[in-house]
Protein backbone atom coordinates (compact mmCIF):
# COMPACT_ATOMS: atom_id res chain seq x y z
CA UNK A 1 0.00 0.00 0.00
CA UNK A 2 1.45 3.33 -1.10
CA UNK A 3 0.50 5.47 1.89
CA UNK A 4 2.28 8.52 0.48
CA UNK A 5 0.11 8.32 -2.63
CA UNK A 6 -3.07 7.91 -0.59
CA UNK A 7 -2.09 10.84 1.62
CA UNK A 8 -1.34 12.95 -1.46
CA UNK A 9 -4.70 12.02 -2.96
CA UNK A 10 -6.50 12.97 0.22
CA UNK A 11 -4.63 16.26 0.45
CA UNK A 12 -5.44 17.03 -3.18
CA UNK A 13 -9.09 16.13 -2.71
CA UNK A 14 -9.39 18.21 0.44
CA UNK A 15 -7.64 21.26 -1.03
CA UNK A 16 -9.68 21.01 -4.25
CA UNK A 17 -12.94 20.81 -2.32
CA UNK A 18 -12.07 23.70 -0.01
CA UNK A 19 -11.02 26.01 -2.85
CA UNK A 20 -13.61 24.93 -5.40
CA UNK A 21 -16.66 25.08 -3.13
CA UNK A 22 -16.75 28.87 -2.58
CA UNK A 23 -15.90 29.40 -6.25
CA UNK A 24 -18.69 27.08 -7.28
CA UNK A 25 -21.15 28.90 -4.99
CA UNK A 26 -20.17 32.20 -6.63
CA UNK A 27 -20.61 30.70 -10.08
CA UNK A 28 -23.75 28.64 -9.42
CA UNK A 29 -25.88 31.47 -7.94
CA UNK A 30 -25.91 33.73 -11.01
CA UNK A 31 -26.28 30.67 -13.25
CA UNK A 32 -29.35 29.65 -11.27
CA UNK A 33 -30.94 33.07 -10.80
CA UNK A 34 -29.91 35.45 -13.50
CA UNK A 35 -30.64 35.50 -17.18
CA UNK A 36 -27.52 37.10 -18.62
CA UNK A 37 -26.04 37.14 -22.06
CA UNK A 38 -23.65 34.23 -22.49
CA UNK A 39 -25.19 32.09 -19.75
CA UNK A 40 -25.49 29.06 -22.04
CA UNK A 41 -21.85 29.51 -23.01
CA UNK A 42 -20.74 29.54 -19.37
CA UNK A 43 -22.89 26.48 -18.65
CA UNK A 44 -21.35 24.68 -21.61
CA UNK A 45 -17.82 25.56 -20.47
CA UNK A 46 -18.57 24.34 -16.95
CA UNK A 47 -19.93 21.05 -18.30
CA UNK A 48 -17.06 20.48 -20.72
CA UNK A 49 -14.89 18.39 -18.34
CA UNK A 50 -17.78 15.88 -18.19
CA UNK A 51 -17.53 15.04 -21.88
CA UNK A 52 -13.93 15.78 -22.84
CA UNK A 53 -11.53 12.82 -22.78
CA UNK A 54 -9.25 13.38 -19.77
CA UNK A 55 -6.22 13.28 -22.04
CA UNK A 56 -7.62 16.15 -24.14
CA UNK A 57 -8.40 18.23 -21.04
CA UNK A 58 -5.00 17.29 -19.63
CA UNK A 59 -3.27 18.32 -22.82
CA UNK A 60 -4.84 21.76 -22.84
CA UNK A 61 -4.12 22.23 -19.15
CA UNK A 62 -0.54 21.21 -19.78
CA UNK A 63 -0.31 23.87 -22.49
CA UNK A 64 -2.08 26.49 -20.36
CA UNK A 65 0.00 25.87 -17.25
CA UNK A 66 3.34 25.07 -18.92
CA UNK A 67 6.52 27.09 -18.58
CA UNK A 68 5.88 28.70 -21.96
CA UNK A 69 2.42 29.92 -20.97
CA UNK A 70 1.68 33.33 -19.44
CA UNK A 71 0.08 31.66 -16.42
CA UNK A 72 3.04 29.34 -15.90
CA UNK A 73 5.51 32.18 -16.19
CA UNK A 74 3.55 34.46 -13.88
CA UNK A 75 3.33 31.71 -11.27
CA UNK A 76 7.03 30.98 -11.62
CA UNK A 77 7.84 34.67 -11.14
CA UNK A 78 5.59 34.91 -8.09
CA UNK A 79 6.48 31.70 -6.26
CA UNK A 80 9.64 30.42 -7.90
CA UNK A 81 7.83 27.15 -8.64
CA UNK A 82 6.54 25.66 -11.86
CA UNK A 83 2.90 24.70 -12.33
CA UNK A 84 3.34 21.53 -14.35
CA UNK A 85 4.51 18.36 -12.68
CA UNK A 86 3.98 19.95 -9.25
CA UNK A 87 1.27 19.62 -6.61
CA UNK A 88 0.22 23.26 -7.22
CA UNK A 89 -0.41 22.63 -10.91
CA UNK A 90 -2.20 19.41 -10.08
CA UNK A 91 -4.46 21.32 -7.67
CA UNK A 92 -5.28 23.91 -10.33
CA UNK A 93 -6.04 21.18 -12.87
CA UNK A 94 -8.12 19.35 -10.28
CA UNK A 95 -10.20 22.48 -9.69
CA UNK A 96 -10.85 22.76 -13.42
CA UNK A 97 -11.81 19.13 -14.03
CA UNK A 98 -14.08 19.14 -10.97
CA UNK A 99 -16.00 22.26 -11.99
CA UNK A 100 -19.13 20.45 -13.23
CA UNK A 101 -19.19 18.14 -10.20
CA UNK A 102 -19.35 21.13 -7.86
CA UNK A 103 -21.22 23.71 -9.91
CA UNK A 104 -24.05 21.61 -11.30
CA UNK A 105 -25.45 20.26 -8.00
CA UNK A 106 -25.16 23.72 -6.48
CA UNK A 107 -26.86 25.34 -9.45
CA UNK A 108 -29.76 22.90 -9.12
CA UNK A 109 -29.95 23.54 -5.38
CA UNK A 110 -29.99 27.34 -5.74
CA UNK A 111 -32.45 27.06 -8.58
CA UNK A 112 -34.86 25.29 -6.23
CA UNK A 113 -34.94 28.24 -3.79
CA UNK A 114 -37.95 30.40 -4.71
CA UNK A 115 -37.08 33.96 -5.65
CA UNK A 116 -39.58 35.26 -3.11
CA UNK A 117 -37.79 33.50 -0.25
CA UNK A 118 -34.55 35.31 -1.10
CA UNK A 119 -36.42 38.58 -1.46
CA UNK A 120 -38.14 37.98 1.87
CA UNK A 121 -34.69 37.73 3.46
CA UNK A 122 -33.76 41.17 2.11
CA UNK A 123 -37.11 42.59 3.20
CA UNK A 124 -36.28 41.25 6.68
CA UNK A 125 -33.29 43.59 6.62
CA UNK A 126 -30.67 40.93 5.91
CA UNK A 127 -27.74 42.05 3.78
CA UNK A 128 -26.93 39.88 0.74
CA UNK A 129 -24.15 38.31 2.78
CA UNK A 130 -26.46 37.54 5.72
CA UNK A 131 -29.10 36.20 3.34
CA UNK A 132 -26.45 33.91 1.82
CA UNK A 133 -25.44 32.45 5.18
CA UNK A 134 -28.79 32.40 6.95
CA UNK A 135 -31.15 31.48 4.14
CA UNK A 136 -29.54 30.48 0.84
CA UNK A 137 -26.78 28.14 2.03
CA UNK A 138 -28.95 26.31 4.60
CA UNK A 139 -31.58 25.75 1.91
CA UNK A 140 -28.97 24.68 -0.65
CA UNK A 141 -27.38 22.31 1.88
CA UNK A 142 -28.25 19.04 0.08
CA UNK A 143 -26.67 20.45 -3.09
CA UNK A 144 -23.59 21.58 -1.19
CA UNK A 145 -23.22 18.12 0.31
CA UNK A 146 -23.52 16.50 -3.10
CA UNK A 147 -20.93 18.91 -4.50
CA UNK A 148 -18.50 18.13 -1.67
CA UNK A 149 -18.77 14.37 -2.00
CA UNK A 150 -18.66 14.32 -5.77
CA UNK A 151 -15.64 16.63 -5.91
CA UNK A 152 -13.81 14.72 -3.21
CA UNK A 153 -14.49 11.29 -4.65
CA UNK A 154 -13.86 12.36 -8.22
CA UNK A 155 -10.49 13.90 -7.30
CA UNK A 156 -9.46 10.65 -5.64
CA UNK A 157 -10.33 8.72 -8.77
CA UNK A 158 -9.11 11.04 -11.54
CA UNK A 159 -6.35 9.47 -13.60
CA UNK A 160 -5.92 10.90 -17.11
CA UNK A 161 -5.70 14.60 -16.30
CA UNK A 162 -3.47 13.92 -13.29
CA UNK A 163 -1.05 11.87 -15.37
CA UNK A 164 -0.94 14.51 -18.12
CA UNK A 165 -0.46 17.53 -15.85
CA UNK A 166 1.36 16.01 -12.87
CA UNK A 167 3.14 13.01 -14.23
CA UNK A 168 4.17 10.39 -11.71
CA UNK A 169 6.46 11.97 -9.13
CA UNK A 170 6.41 10.22 -5.78
CA UNK A 171 5.39 12.50 -2.94
CA UNK A 172 4.59 15.38 -5.33
CA UNK A 173 2.11 14.26 -7.96
CA UNK A 174 1.69 10.49 -7.59
CA UNK A 175 -1.90 10.09 -6.46
CA UNK A 176 -3.41 6.77 -5.47
CA UNK A 177 -4.98 6.32 -8.92
CA UNK A 178 -1.56 6.75 -10.55
CA UNK A 179 0.02 4.46 -7.95
CA UNK A 180 -2.46 1.70 -8.82
CA UNK A 181 -1.55 2.02 -12.49
CA UNK A 182 2.12 1.99 -11.43
CA UNK A 183 1.64 -1.20 -9.41
CA UNK A 184 -0.08 -2.94 -12.33
CA UNK A 185 2.74 -1.91 -14.64
CA UNK A 186 5.19 -3.39 -12.15
CA UNK A 187 3.14 -6.66 -11.97
CA UNK A 188 2.41 -5.97 -8.29
CA UNK A 189 -1.16 -7.25 -8.48
CA UNK A 190 -1.49 -7.47 -4.71
CA UNK A 191 -0.48 -3.85 -4.19
CA UNK A 192 -2.86 -2.73 -6.94
CA UNK A 193 -5.68 -4.82 -5.45
CA UNK A 194 -5.26 -3.39 -1.95
CA UNK A 195 -5.25 0.18 -3.20
CA UNK A 196 -8.15 -0.44 -5.56
CA UNK A 197 -10.17 -1.96 -2.75
CA UNK A 198 -9.38 1.02 -0.51
CA UNK A 199 -10.51 3.44 -3.20
CA UNK A 200 -13.63 1.39 -3.89
CA UNK A 201 -14.54 1.22 -0.20
CA UNK A 202 -13.99 4.92 0.24
CA UNK A 203 -16.06 5.89 -2.80
CA UNK A 204 -18.88 3.57 -1.78
CA UNK A 205 -18.87 4.91 1.79
CA UNK A 206 -18.92 8.47 0.50
CA UNK A 207 -21.93 7.92 -1.77
CA UNK A 208 -23.79 6.00 0.94
CA UNK A 209 -23.06 8.75 3.48
CA UNK A 210 -24.36 11.48 1.21
CA UNK A 211 -27.55 9.57 0.51
CA UNK A 212 -28.12 8.98 4.21
CA UNK A 213 -27.36 12.55 5.20
CA UNK A 214 -29.48 13.89 2.34
CA UNK A 215 -32.43 11.81 3.52
CA UNK A 216 -32.01 12.99 7.12
CA UNK A 217 -31.87 16.62 6.01
CA UNK A 218 -34.88 16.00 3.81
CA UNK A 219 -36.86 14.79 6.84
CA UNK A 220 -35.72 17.71 8.95
CA UNK A 221 -36.42 20.44 6.35
Amino acid at each position, binding site marked *: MDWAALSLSLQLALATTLILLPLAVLLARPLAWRAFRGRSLVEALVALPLVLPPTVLGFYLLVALGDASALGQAYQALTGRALVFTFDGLLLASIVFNLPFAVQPLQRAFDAI*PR*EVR*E*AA*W*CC*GMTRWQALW*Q*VELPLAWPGILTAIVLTFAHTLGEFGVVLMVGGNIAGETRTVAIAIYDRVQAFDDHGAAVMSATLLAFSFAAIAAINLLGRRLGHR*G
Partner: protein
Amino acid sequence: MAEGLHATLRQQAPIPLEAELACAPGELLALVGPSGSGKSTLLRCIAGLHTAADGSIRCNGETWFDAAAAINQPVQARRVGFVFQSYALFPHLSALENVAAALGGLTFAERTARAHELLARVHLDGLEQRKPSALSGGQQQRVAVARALARDPAVLLLDEPFSAVDQVTRRKLQQELARLRAHLEIPMLLVTHDLDEARMLADRMVILHRGRTLQAGTPDEVMTRPQSAAIARLVGLVNLFEGRLVHDGGLKLEWLDHKLEIANITGNAGERVCWVIPPEGVLLHRRERPSRGEAENPVSGVVRDCLRLGPFTQIRLVPDGGGEPLAFSVPTHVAERNGIAAGAAARVSLLAASIHLMPWESLDDPRLRSA
Protein backbone atom coordinates in the same frame (compact mmCIF):
# COMPACT_ATOMS: atom_id res chain seq x y z
CA MET B 1 -42.44 66.55 2.95
CA ALA B 2 -45.82 65.05 3.65
CA GLU B 3 -46.22 62.05 5.91
CA GLY B 4 -47.08 58.69 4.40
CA LEU B 5 -46.13 57.09 1.15
CA HIS B 6 -46.03 58.86 -2.21
CA ALA B 7 -45.03 57.05 -5.36
CA THR B 8 -44.90 58.03 -9.01
CA LEU B 9 -43.53 55.34 -11.29
CA ARG B 10 -43.07 55.07 -15.01
CA GLN B 11 -41.47 52.46 -17.23
CA GLN B 12 -42.05 50.82 -20.60
CA ALA B 13 -40.72 47.31 -19.95
CA PRO B 14 -40.93 44.56 -18.80
CA ILE B 15 -44.40 45.62 -17.67
CA PRO B 16 -45.50 49.13 -18.67
CA LEU B 17 -46.13 51.36 -15.66
CA GLU B 18 -47.58 54.80 -15.38
CA ALA B 19 -48.72 54.91 -11.83
CA GLU B 20 -49.22 57.45 -9.13
CA LEU B 21 -50.38 56.74 -5.62
CA ALA B 22 -50.41 58.18 -2.14
CA CYS B 23 -51.16 56.41 1.12
CA ALA B 24 -51.46 58.19 4.46
CA PRO B 25 -50.24 56.75 7.78
CA GLY B 26 -52.84 54.36 9.15
CA GLU B 27 -54.58 54.15 5.79
CA LEU B 28 -55.13 50.90 3.93
CA LEU B 29 -54.97 51.42 0.19
CA ALA B 30 -56.04 48.59 -2.08
CA LEU B 31 -54.41 48.22 -5.49
CA VAL B 32 -57.05 46.55 -7.62
CA GLY B 33 -56.80 45.32 -11.16
CA PRO B 34 -56.85 42.22 -13.33
CA SER B 35 -53.86 39.86 -13.63
CA GLY B 36 -50.98 41.53 -15.42
CA SER B 37 -52.15 45.04 -14.57
CA GLY B 38 -48.89 45.79 -12.77
CA LYS B 39 -50.18 45.64 -9.18
CA SER B 40 -47.43 43.37 -7.90
CA THR B 41 -44.76 45.19 -9.92
CA LEU B 42 -45.83 48.43 -8.27
CA LEU B 43 -45.53 46.82 -4.85
CA ARG B 44 -42.11 45.40 -5.72
CA CYS B 45 -40.95 48.85 -6.84
CA ILE B 46 -41.96 50.31 -3.49
CA ALA B 47 -40.14 47.54 -1.64
CA GLY B 48 -37.02 48.06 -3.76
CA LEU B 49 -37.22 44.60 -5.33
CA HIS B 50 -37.72 46.13 -8.76
CA THR B 51 -36.42 49.42 -10.11
CA ALA B 52 -38.64 51.43 -12.43
CA ALA B 53 -37.05 53.45 -15.21
CA ASP B 54 -38.45 56.73 -14.01
CA GLY B 55 -40.27 58.30 -11.09
CA SER B 56 -39.87 58.66 -7.36
CA ILE B 57 -40.89 57.00 -4.10
CA ARG B 58 -41.00 58.95 -0.85
CA CYS B 59 -41.97 57.64 2.55
CA ASN B 60 -42.38 59.89 5.60
CA GLY B 61 -40.13 62.54 4.10
CA GLU B 62 -37.41 60.05 3.16
CA THR B 63 -36.58 59.57 -0.51
CA TRP B 64 -36.36 55.87 -1.29
CA PHE B 65 -36.16 56.27 -5.03
CA ASP B 66 -35.70 59.19 -7.35
CA ALA B 67 -34.65 58.35 -10.89
CA ALA B 68 -33.82 61.98 -11.73
CA ALA B 69 -31.53 62.34 -8.71
CA ALA B 70 -30.12 58.82 -9.14
CA ILE B 71 -31.30 57.83 -5.64
CA ASN B 72 -32.22 54.20 -5.16
CA GLN B 73 -32.15 52.95 -1.60
CA PRO B 74 -31.59 49.20 -1.27
CA VAL B 75 -34.39 46.97 0.01
CA GLN B 76 -32.72 46.61 3.39
CA ALA B 77 -32.65 50.37 3.97
CA ARG B 78 -36.32 50.94 3.15
CA ARG B 79 -37.82 49.20 6.19
CA VAL B 80 -40.77 47.63 4.45
CA GLY B 81 -42.89 44.83 5.84
CA PHE B 82 -43.71 42.57 2.90
CA VAL B 83 -46.24 39.74 2.98
CA PHE B 84 -45.71 37.73 -0.19
CA GLN B 85 -48.49 35.93 -2.00
CA SER B 86 -46.76 32.61 -1.31
CA TYR B 87 -45.75 33.93 2.17
CA ALA B 88 -42.10 33.09 1.33
CA LEU B 89 -41.39 31.77 4.82
CA PHE B 90 -37.92 30.34 5.40
CA PRO B 91 -38.70 26.60 5.29
CA HIS B 92 -35.68 25.56 7.37
CA LEU B 93 -36.60 27.84 10.28
CA SER B 94 -39.34 27.52 12.90
CA ALA B 95 -42.16 30.08 13.11
CA LEU B 96 -40.28 31.79 15.93
CA GLU B 97 -37.00 31.84 14.01
CA ASN B 98 -38.79 33.17 10.91
CA VAL B 99 -40.00 36.16 12.88
CA ALA B 100 -36.70 36.57 14.74
CA ALA B 101 -34.89 36.62 11.38
CA ALA B 102 -36.39 40.05 10.77
CA LEU B 103 -35.19 41.35 14.15
CA GLY B 104 -31.56 41.98 13.34
CA GLY B 105 -29.71 44.37 15.64
CA LEU B 106 -31.23 42.98 18.84
CA THR B 107 -29.66 40.51 21.25
CA PHE B 108 -30.73 36.89 21.01
CA ALA B 109 -32.87 37.17 24.15
CA GLU B 110 -34.54 40.37 22.93
CA ARG B 111 -35.19 38.84 19.54
CA THR B 112 -36.77 35.75 21.03
CA ALA B 113 -38.95 37.76 23.41
CA ARG B 114 -40.12 40.09 20.65
CA ALA B 115 -40.79 37.20 18.25
CA HIS B 116 -42.92 35.50 20.94
CA GLU B 117 -44.84 38.72 21.41
CA LEU B 118 -45.48 39.14 17.67
CA LEU B 119 -46.60 35.56 17.24
CA ALA B 120 -48.99 35.95 20.17
CA ARG B 121 -50.38 39.05 18.47
CA VAL B 122 -51.36 36.95 15.44
CA HIS B 123 -52.74 34.17 17.68
CA LEU B 124 -49.95 31.68 17.08
CA ASP B 125 -48.82 31.16 20.68
CA GLY B 126 -47.98 27.52 21.22
CA LEU B 127 -46.90 26.97 17.61
CA GLU B 128 -43.60 28.86 17.82
CA GLN B 129 -41.41 25.82 17.30
CA ARG B 130 -43.25 24.49 14.26
CA LYS B 131 -41.63 24.59 10.85
CA PRO B 132 -43.72 26.21 8.08
CA SER B 133 -44.38 22.77 6.57
CA ALA B 134 -46.15 21.78 9.81
CA LEU B 135 -48.43 24.84 9.74
CA SER B 136 -51.72 25.29 7.87
CA GLY B 137 -52.02 27.90 5.12
CA GLY B 138 -53.72 30.34 7.46
CA GLN B 139 -51.09 29.84 10.15
CA GLN B 140 -48.32 30.37 7.61
CA GLN B 141 -49.94 33.62 6.54
CA ARG B 142 -50.02 34.77 10.16
CA VAL B 143 -46.31 34.00 10.56
CA ALA B 144 -45.68 36.04 7.39
CA VAL B 145 -47.67 38.96 8.82
CA ALA B 146 -45.82 38.75 12.16
CA ARG B 147 -42.50 38.65 10.32
CA ALA B 148 -43.49 41.65 8.19
CA LEU B 149 -44.35 43.64 11.32
CA ALA B 150 -41.20 42.58 13.18
CA ARG B 151 -38.97 45.28 11.71
CA ASP B 152 -41.36 47.97 12.89
CA PRO B 153 -41.81 48.80 9.21
CA ALA B 154 -42.36 52.23 7.69
CA VAL B 155 -44.89 50.72 5.30
CA LEU B 156 -46.72 47.39 5.14
CA LEU B 157 -47.04 45.77 1.72
CA LEU B 158 -49.48 42.90 1.28
CA ASP B 159 -49.34 41.06 -2.05
CA GLU B 160 -52.57 39.08 -2.41
CA PRO B 161 -52.16 37.72 1.11
CA PHE B 162 -55.47 35.84 1.12
CA SER B 163 -55.32 34.14 -2.26
CA ALA B 164 -53.75 30.88 -1.11
CA VAL B 165 -56.30 29.88 1.53
CA ASP B 166 -59.83 28.50 1.47
CA GLN B 167 -62.90 30.71 1.73
CA VAL B 168 -63.54 30.15 5.46
CA THR B 169 -59.92 30.82 6.44
CA ARG B 170 -59.88 33.84 4.12
CA ARG B 171 -62.81 35.47 5.92
CA LYS B 172 -61.15 34.82 9.26
CA LEU B 173 -57.79 36.22 8.17
CA GLN B 174 -59.48 39.25 6.64
CA GLN B 175 -61.19 39.97 9.94
CA GLU B 176 -57.88 39.57 11.75
CA LEU B 177 -56.21 42.01 9.37
CA ALA B 178 -59.05 44.48 9.88
CA ARG B 179 -58.49 44.24 13.66
CA LEU B 180 -54.70 44.37 13.40
CA ARG B 181 -54.61 47.40 11.12
CA ALA B 182 -56.59 49.47 13.59
CA HIS B 183 -53.43 49.61 15.71
CA LEU B 184 -51.02 50.32 12.86
CA GLU B 185 -50.06 53.91 12.17
CA ILE B 186 -48.24 53.21 8.92
CA PRO B 187 -49.32 53.27 5.28
CA MET B 188 -50.61 49.84 4.21
CA LEU B 189 -50.89 48.68 0.61
CA LEU B 190 -52.99 45.66 -0.25
CA VAL B 191 -52.75 44.14 -3.71
CA THR B 192 -55.85 42.20 -4.65
CA HIS B 193 -57.97 41.32 -7.62
CA ASP B 194 -60.93 40.67 -5.35
CA LEU B 195 -63.19 43.73 -5.33
CA ASP B 196 -65.18 42.50 -2.35
CA GLU B 197 -61.98 42.16 -0.37
CA ALA B 198 -60.92 45.69 -1.32
CA ARG B 199 -64.36 47.01 -0.43
CA MET B 200 -64.30 45.27 2.92
CA LEU B 201 -60.78 46.15 4.06
CA ALA B 202 -59.59 49.26 2.28
CA ASP B 203 -60.10 52.90 3.15
CA ARG B 204 -59.35 53.81 -0.42
CA MET B 205 -58.68 51.89 -3.57
CA VAL B 206 -56.72 52.51 -6.74
CA ILE B 207 -57.79 50.90 -9.98
CA LEU B 208 -54.87 49.73 -12.09
CA HIS B 209 -55.05 48.65 -15.69
CA ARG B 210 -52.08 47.87 -17.91
CA GLY B 211 -49.80 49.58 -15.38
CA ARG B 212 -51.81 52.80 -15.25
CA THR B 213 -53.56 54.07 -12.15
CA LEU B 214 -56.99 54.98 -13.50
CA GLN B 215 -58.93 56.12 -10.47
CA ALA B 216 -58.38 56.48 -6.75
CA GLY B 217 -61.10 56.93 -4.19
CA THR B 218 -63.08 55.23 -1.49
CA PRO B 219 -64.31 51.82 -2.58
CA ASP B 220 -67.85 53.17 -2.61
CA GLU B 221 -66.89 56.10 -4.82
CA VAL B 222 -65.02 53.96 -7.30
CA MET B 223 -67.67 51.23 -7.42
CA THR B 224 -70.67 53.53 -7.80
CA ARG B 225 -69.10 56.59 -9.45
CA PRO B 226 -66.44 55.26 -11.84
CA GLN B 227 -64.78 58.01 -13.86
CA SER B 228 -64.99 56.12 -17.13
CA ALA B 229 -66.68 53.20 -18.78
CA ALA B 230 -63.34 51.37 -18.76
CA ILE B 231 -63.19 51.63 -14.97
CA ALA B 232 -66.83 50.57 -14.72
CA ARG B 233 -65.93 47.41 -16.66
CA LEU B 234 -62.83 46.84 -14.53
CA VAL B 235 -64.80 46.96 -11.29
CA GLY B 236 -67.31 44.57 -12.79
CA LEU B 237 -70.28 46.91 -13.12
CA VAL B 238 -72.85 45.22 -15.32
CA ASN B 239 -75.48 47.78 -16.29
CA LEU B 240 -73.31 49.88 -18.57
CA PHE B 241 -75.02 51.63 -21.49
CA GLU B 242 -74.65 54.45 -23.98
CA GLY B 243 -77.12 57.35 -24.13
CA ARG B 244 -77.56 60.99 -25.02
CA LEU B 245 -78.52 64.06 -23.00
CA VAL B 246 -81.70 65.79 -24.21
CA HIS B 247 -83.91 68.68 -23.15
CA ASP B 248 -87.39 67.51 -22.30
CA GLY B 249 -88.76 69.69 -19.54
CA GLY B 250 -85.25 69.80 -18.05
CA LEU B 251 -82.09 67.89 -18.93
CA LYS B 252 -82.72 64.15 -19.23
CA LEU B 253 -80.91 61.04 -20.37
CA GLU B 254 -82.28 59.54 -23.56
CA TRP B 255 -81.87 55.80 -23.70
CA LEU B 256 -83.75 53.68 -26.22
CA ASP B 257 -87.28 55.17 -26.16
CA HIS B 258 -86.95 56.38 -22.59
CA LYS B 259 -86.11 59.78 -21.26
CA LEU B 260 -84.65 59.10 -17.85
CA GLU B 261 -84.61 61.52 -14.97
CA ILE B 262 -81.27 61.79 -13.23
CA ALA B 263 -80.45 63.43 -9.92
CA ASN B 264 -77.74 66.10 -10.15
CA ILE B 265 -77.44 65.96 -13.92
CA THR B 266 -74.86 68.20 -15.60
CA GLY B 267 -73.91 68.47 -19.28
CA ASN B 268 -75.25 69.80 -22.53
CA ALA B 269 -78.21 68.66 -24.57
CA GLY B 270 -77.08 66.54 -27.50
CA GLU B 271 -73.99 65.25 -25.67
CA ARG B 272 -73.39 61.53 -25.94
CA VAL B 273 -72.62 59.80 -22.64
CA CYS B 274 -72.05 56.40 -21.08
CA TRP B 275 -74.03 55.62 -17.99
CA VAL B 276 -74.19 52.96 -15.36
CA ILE B 277 -76.67 51.91 -12.72
CA PRO B 278 -75.86 49.42 -9.94
CA PRO B 279 -78.24 46.44 -9.72
CA GLU B 280 -79.48 47.87 -6.40
CA GLY B 281 -80.78 50.89 -8.34
CA VAL B 282 -83.13 48.75 -10.44
CA LEU B 283 -86.45 48.11 -8.65
CA LEU B 284 -88.89 45.44 -9.78
CA HIS B 285 -92.52 46.53 -9.85
CA ARG B 286 -95.08 44.36 -8.14
CA ARG B 287 -97.35 42.70 -10.60
CA GLU B 288 -100.72 43.39 -8.95
CA ARG B 289 -100.21 46.46 -6.81
CA PRO B 290 -98.42 49.63 -7.88
CA SER B 291 -95.68 50.51 -5.45
CA ARG B 292 -93.72 53.52 -4.37
CA GLY B 293 -91.24 54.67 -6.96
CA GLU B 294 -93.22 53.20 -9.81
CA ALA B 295 -93.33 56.56 -11.47
CA GLU B 296 -89.57 56.91 -11.33
CA ASN B 297 -88.05 56.07 -14.73
CA PRO B 298 -90.31 53.11 -15.48
CA VAL B 299 -88.94 50.64 -18.00
CA SER B 300 -90.79 47.59 -19.25
CA GLY B 301 -89.31 44.60 -20.93
CA VAL B 302 -89.08 40.83 -21.19
CA VAL B 303 -87.12 38.61 -18.81
CA ARG B 304 -84.31 37.00 -20.78
CA ASP B 305 -83.22 34.69 -17.97
CA CYS B 306 -83.34 34.36 -14.23
CA LEU B 307 -80.81 32.54 -12.16
CA ARG B 308 -81.58 31.41 -8.66
CA LEU B 309 -78.58 31.89 -6.37
CA GLY B 310 -79.70 30.76 -2.92
CA PRO B 311 -81.93 33.38 -1.32
CA PHE B 312 -81.58 35.75 -4.28
CA THR B 313 -82.56 35.47 -7.92
CA GLN B 314 -80.56 37.25 -10.57
CA ILE B 315 -82.68 38.63 -13.39
CA ARG B 316 -81.74 39.98 -16.82
CA LEU B 317 -84.44 42.05 -18.42
CA VAL B 318 -84.34 43.04 -22.10
CA PRO B 319 -86.07 46.44 -22.33
CA ASP B 320 -88.77 46.97 -24.94
CA GLY B 321 -87.00 48.41 -27.94
CA GLY B 322 -84.10 45.96 -27.61
CA GLY B 323 -80.56 46.54 -26.53
CA GLU B 324 -78.42 45.07 -23.80
CA PRO B 325 -80.31 43.63 -20.82
CA LEU B 326 -80.62 45.29 -17.40
CA ALA B 327 -79.32 43.09 -14.60
CA PHE B 328 -80.62 43.18 -11.06
CA SER B 329 -81.51 40.78 -8.31
CA VAL B 330 -84.46 40.30 -6.01
CA PRO B 331 -85.18 37.97 -3.11
CA THR B 332 -86.16 34.61 -4.56
CA HIS B 333 -89.61 34.68 -2.91
CA VAL B 334 -90.28 38.06 -4.57
CA ALA B 335 -89.32 36.65 -7.96
CA GLU B 336 -91.65 33.71 -7.40
CA ARG B 337 -94.56 35.82 -6.16
CA ASN B 338 -94.27 38.07 -9.21
CA GLY B 339 -94.14 35.17 -11.62
CA ILE B 340 -90.67 36.06 -12.89
CA ALA B 341 -89.51 33.50 -15.42
CA ALA B 342 -87.70 33.57 -18.74
CA GLY B 343 -89.98 35.13 -21.36
CA ALA B 344 -92.28 36.84 -18.85
CA ALA B 345 -93.04 40.56 -19.14
CA ALA B 346 -91.90 42.74 -16.25
CA ARG B 347 -91.53 46.37 -15.28
CA VAL B 348 -88.80 48.05 -13.31
CA SER B 349 -87.89 51.53 -12.13
CA LEU B 350 -84.43 52.98 -12.54
CA LEU B 351 -83.73 55.12 -9.47
CA ALA B 352 -82.72 58.60 -10.58
CA ALA B 353 -80.22 58.93 -7.75
CA SER B 354 -78.44 55.69 -8.75
CA ILE B 355 -77.76 56.58 -12.37
CA HIS B 356 -74.19 57.72 -12.92
CA LEU B 357 -73.03 59.47 -16.09
CA MET B 358 -69.55 59.18 -17.63
CA PRO B 359 -67.86 60.62 -20.70
CA TRP B 360 -68.86 58.82 -23.85
CA GLU B 361 -66.69 56.08 -25.30
CA SER B 362 -67.81 53.35 -27.62
CA LEU B 363 -68.77 50.32 -25.56
CA ASP B 364 -67.99 48.13 -28.55
CA ASP B 365 -64.35 49.22 -28.43
CA PRO B 366 -62.43 45.93 -28.20
CA ARG B 367 -59.91 47.52 -25.77
CA LEU B 368 -62.76 48.34 -23.46
CA ARG B 369 -64.20 44.85 -23.89
CA SER B 370 -60.92 43.23 -22.98
CA ALA B 371 -60.85 45.37 -19.83
